[in-house]
């Protein structure tokens, strides 16, 4: 499915999914996904739980044995890809601080040996951008869910990614965290970075995304938020017998 959304000149890539399918353990997770995402735009993926949204972004990250072709076309040299997972699973008693976790992301030497001096500025900047400068010495287990989500956002900023893949970043964020996320997203959009964003909060999607893609094992629609989030589309999307909704006459296809 292709939709004409003008690319924004910037550093983010355009992404083309060509007949992407995925089966795991005999179960079809994704069927024949054909989708083109414009460069420098914010693309939201919506759909019911188990609809294959996370699997699609993991395929994009090269972590799934997909079939079909996924191609990223970068404006210059291939840039950085940042990934914010849905949740960070770890033992709450683990004696790792926020700084230790971020250190393991940017350096090859073990995190318990401390943060390398040459990466200190990078980590300082990322923590400042997510408002966690004062909590760098806190144990990860002592952080709230929202603060942990901010740490995940911070690691996607080190170094600044040109393609950001976000898996429900708002799920655990508090009000201030959501405002922070919106600020970051605004900066990424202004800089022309491509964002692929899985989200359940449809109000946030309507407000912030450039395109919305409905996914429930197969591609249901790929449109602007105004078209995609019409009531009949949403009822179909979240019903058990979801089918691809034929485009109305006059809609851009």
């Amino acid at each position, binding site marked *: 499915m292709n939709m004409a959304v003008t690319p924004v000149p910037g550093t983010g890539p355009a992404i083309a999914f060509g007949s992407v399918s995925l089966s795991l353990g005999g179960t079809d997770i994704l069927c024949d996904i054909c989708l083109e995402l414009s460069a420098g735009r914010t693309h939201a993926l919506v759909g019911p739980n188990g609809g294959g949204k996370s699997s699609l972004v993991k395929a994009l990250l090269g972590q799934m044995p997909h079939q079909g072709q*996924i191609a*990223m076309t970068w404006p210059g040299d291939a840039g950085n890809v940042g990934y914010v997972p849905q949740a960070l699973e770890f033992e709450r008693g683990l004696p790792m601080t926020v700084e230790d976790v971020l250190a393991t992301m940017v350096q090859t030497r073990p995190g318990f040996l401390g943060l390398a001096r040459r990466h200190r500025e990078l980590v300082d900047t990322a923590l400042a951008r997510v408002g966690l400068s004062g909590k760098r010495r806190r144990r990860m287990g002592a952080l709230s869910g929202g603060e942990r989500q901010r740490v995940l956002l911070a690691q996607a900023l080190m170094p600044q990614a040109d393609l950001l893949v976000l898996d429900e970043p708002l799920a655990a964020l508090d009000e201030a965290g959501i405002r922070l996320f919106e600020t970051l997203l605004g900066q990424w959009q202004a800089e022309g970075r491509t964002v692929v964003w899985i989200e359940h909060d449809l109000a946030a999607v309507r407000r912030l995304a450039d395109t919305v893609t409905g996914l429930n094992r197969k591609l249901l629609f790929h449109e602007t938020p105004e078209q995609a989030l019409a009531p009949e589309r949403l009822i179909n999307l979240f019903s058990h017998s979801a089918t691809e909704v034929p485009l109305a006459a006059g809609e851009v296809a």
Partner: protein
Amino acid sequence: MTTVVVEPAGAGHETLWLLLAAGLILATAALVVGWHGRDYHVAELAPHQLDARRDLTAAEQGLYADLRVAYDELLFYAEAPAVAELADSGLPPFIADASAARRGHHRWQRLTLAGVTDDGPVATAVVYYGETAEPEVAGSLLLAAPAADTEPSDVRVWLNREAGATLPASLMPADLAKSGWHLVVAQFDAGVTRERQ
């Protein structure tokens, strides 16, 4: 402009390298084995010989081991002693004890037969003859007493499993074979560590 195709996750390359490494190891092992490997030959026995490890019953093996030890003792005597003397000194298998009863009730006697050397027959040779009472448990045995300059390794024991075993006319191989005596030989070859089907 750069186009990057995202490869599906999979272990195809790792599997290929692993198979290659496994193949290389097997090929190297096959080369080394082919190079250094040696055929082993288990010495074939003559028809008049019996293998001490494989061809004897449990009772016969016990008696044969005792006779080998007794032979070492006999080396200390200037002349071959009488059976009664050996029995008095408690040397098996000449004493009549529980082991002797279990191993076929042999009746031991010292005899003189025509002997043999590398140069041909000599006048006499002293032998110890154990006549079995139970041939199905252990056959009759013949131990050549040591001559003047023999070594412990020169021990020679013959076995005859026939019920009414007759003594050979001499220790000439032809005479022994004719009266049904088999030389018991102990050999240490590659067959020690390999099962022979």
